[in-house]
């Protein structure tokens, strides 16, 4: 069967559900007028919902843009510190954010279109409700006339069809809004989990690395100073254990492993763990 015919049947079937026909057609007219007012309210709420969803996406886009800018700065700083690996990481993340931003833009455009359409629907609906209000009074006044019954029937069918159409449009709009809100929620989660770089900066791994790199220069100087002090002030006794950790354990070996023994002196007297020396090399290259 023809698609248009079948679809027309769908609309009518939905229309029959929209309106309860009561015995007195004049009452049906009043009832359908009430329903239309309700629907007008719904559509107005729909407009507000779309606007809220749109604003949320705009806010997210701003946040993502800020993240992208920050990563760009970080990449520059990293390169200045000869940390190409970090710069690469920052730019990779920035590219990922760029993709997210593009998706947000598409969603935003869709929401704007949806909003425009709903505003238009509201205006049309308002005009229709107004027209119906005056017509129903005329129809009710002439109800006794023989043809009035048919006219009322037509008016009721017509108005319920329009309402069913508006109802379906609203449903579609709401489905879309729900989809977008779900996606917006996912972006919010990404933003808050730091996967797209936390904006507070405290838990930002790239920033942490950069800070560490810039601090390591200072640490080197302090280390050199400490080494110098130790070498001159405490030549033999104090340094014996940390210098030769392999020789220290014999007695303690059976109970605990070697590490705790030289752990303490190393922390206070000889703070030259491997990770620092590694970074030193990278820093100088």
């Amino acid at each position: 069967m023809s698609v248009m015919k079948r679809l027309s049947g769908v609309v009518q079937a939905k229309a029959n559900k929209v309106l309860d026909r009561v015995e007195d057609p004049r009452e049906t007219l009043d009832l359908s007028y009430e329903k239309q007012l309700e629907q007008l309210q719904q559509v107005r709420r729909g407009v507000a919902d779309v606007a809220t969803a749109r604003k949320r996406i705009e806010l997210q886009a701003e946040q993502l843009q800020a993240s992208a800018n920050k990563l760009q700065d970080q990449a520059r700083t990293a390169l200045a510190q000869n940390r190409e690996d970090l710069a690469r990481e920052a730019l990779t993340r920035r590219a990922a954010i760029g993709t997210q931003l593009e998706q947000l833009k598409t969603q935003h455009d869709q929401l704007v279109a949806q909003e425009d359409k709903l505003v238009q629907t509201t205006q049309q609906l308002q005009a229709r409700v107004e027209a119906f209000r005056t017509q129903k009074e005329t129809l009710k006044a002439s109800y006794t006339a023989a043809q009035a019954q048919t006219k009322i029937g037509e008016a009721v069918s017509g108005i319920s069809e329009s309402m069913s159409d508006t109802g379906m449009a609203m449903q579609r709009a709401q489905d879309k809004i729900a989809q977008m809100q779900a996606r917006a929620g996912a972006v919010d989660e990404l933003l808050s989990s730091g996967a797209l770089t936390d904006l507070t900066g405290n838990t930002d791994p790239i920033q942490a690395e950069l800070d560490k790199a810039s601090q390591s220069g200072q640490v080197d100087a302090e280390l050199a100073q400490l080494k110098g002090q130790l070498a001159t002030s405490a030549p033999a006794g104090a340094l014996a254990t940390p210098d030769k950790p392999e020789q220290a354990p014999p007695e303690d070996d059976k109970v605990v492993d070697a590490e705790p023994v030289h752990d303490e002196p190393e922390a206070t007297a000889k703070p030259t763990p491997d990770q620092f020396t590694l970074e030193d090399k990278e820093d100088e290259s």
Partner: protein
Amino acid sequence: MIVRILEDGQYKVDKSTAKKLDNLDTKLGKALDKSDEAAFARALASLVKTVHASGKRLDPSVITPSDLAIPAATSTLAEVRELLASEAIKVKKKKG
């Protein structure tokens, strides 16, 4: 004959236009059956275009039912299929 484009409005079309619509409707139906998205989009766009070009838009104050309904211009094949299917199930239930 009165045609409603969903999410758009009602239009009065003459017989020759109705005939054109009928041809396009057949194409739309075939596209739906074959799940041919491209053909579906083409047929739907042509239907909407034909109604806009040759039909006369009804004033919103005219309150009357339509003879035919055309899916909303932005509908996807899946959406239309779902709409049609939803009613088919209900009709079956009613009969059963």
